[in-house]
């Protein structure tokens, strides 16, 4: 990937999260990235194409990081699902964390017909399925139900955290997740 293309992606990611996707113009992005509109449109056909790519990249980066963490862990499946929120907490509290792309995007693009909305709900669904897979591996009977509960906790905590940075919302979500997971394992 060209360095300039990469630079545009990173700049757009940051601006989208900090000042909003809709309120970040292409002019703004090229100014901060130190490039021209022409270059931006050479790599990304439209602003929408750029947004979609930012979302895909954000989610891939997070998922890859999480996969590595969980697969290198020697824990049993029943403990791995508990660890999930430890890693989420680590990620949210890292200085680089600026938010979850799909949560932001689905709020800014509520129209179901919109490709950005469609991608963000697909990503939300995929993350839920990922939790469901962890729950099934831990032999939890109602894996779908637990996955729904945990993803609601996760999305709620991330949004609360975005309203009050450093509020520790994820810390409490983690405690709540433990209660729910323990309950589901015993059921």
């Amino acid at each position: 990937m060209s360095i300039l293309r990469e630079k545009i992606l990173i700049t757009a990611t940051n601006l989208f999260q900090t000042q909003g996707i809709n309120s970040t113009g292409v002019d703004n992005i090229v100014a901060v990235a130190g490039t021209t509109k022409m270059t931006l449109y050479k790599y990304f056909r439209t602003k929408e194409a750029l947004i979609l790519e930012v979302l895909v990249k954000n989610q891939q980066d997070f998922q890859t990081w999480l996969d590595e963490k969980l697969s290198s862990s020697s824990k049993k499946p029943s403990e791995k699902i508990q660890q999930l929120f430890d890693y989420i907490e680590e990620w949210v509290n890292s200085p680089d964390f600026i938010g979850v792309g799909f949560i932001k995007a689905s709020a800014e693009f509520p129209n179901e017909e919109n490709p950005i909305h469609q991608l963000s709900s697909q990503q939300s669904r995929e993350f839920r399925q990922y939790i469901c897979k962890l729950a099934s591996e831990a032999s939890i009977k109602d894996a779908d139900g637990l996955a729904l509960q945990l993803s609601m906790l996760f999305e709620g905590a991330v949004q609360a955290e975005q309203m009050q940075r450093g509020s520790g919302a994820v810390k409490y979500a983690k405690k709540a997740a433990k209660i729910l997971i323990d309950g589901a394992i015993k059921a």
Partner: protein
Amino acid sequence: MDILNSQILNSEWLIKMLEKSSPTPHGRLLSLFDILEDWLEAPSIREHLNGQFSKPKTAKLLQDYLSAEAAKAGAAMPEMLANQLYFMAISAIQARLQPNIHAGAGHAFNHAKSAASALILAQTSKEFYIAKSSVYAMAASFLGILVIVGLMLNLKQTQQNEQIAELKSVNKSILSASITPTSTTSEMTASPDQTVAIMAQLELMRHGNCQLIEAIQLPDSQKGIYLNMVVNGQVSTDPHEQKIAMELIKKTRCSYTPMLMANSKS
């Protein structure tokens, strides 16, 4: 009810409904999910929303109300808890409107409510130490109990087996019960927050050094409940059984001083 869109979340109507929903702040916080579910069930609302519910820009009225109630319930960080509950309510509405996309979405509000109960509990329970060595102590007392149980089962086999079989079937229903609409089951099953409260209490006990009551000393009516819920940790959703279990838990003496700290020589 003539509130047809996302304005519901910032409406006086919702606050009034919440205010009269329960005598406790804890109950009022959880009622948010029941009230919104009832609202969403109305056909005219469904039709109007047509599968879409977008997050309102703000819902200050509701967020302030939830924040005040969270403070009354003793939350460590009331404003944050309020925000989390608010976003979870939006997730529940959105999931419920898209049953084809979200597995388990038919029970989205019940799942949101369970998650909310756990979250309230996490914010209102005291911090506790986790002492690894206490797990061994717990395992030892657990083994002791098992021996007693074994003897007891031999003595009173028939009666006990019946009780346990009965309780097991109740336990099996815990998952299904937690996802059945609360409005129809409120008399027969305990509220999710009570269930979660017991689970949390048991979880807390696992981290402490507890002297469990010897089951043989208990009256027959309590023995089965004690063994299943307190010893085995299988919490049933029967409110009567939960009450007994809670009383038995209160009688159990636990020390939460970290063993590692007590044992360390330095």
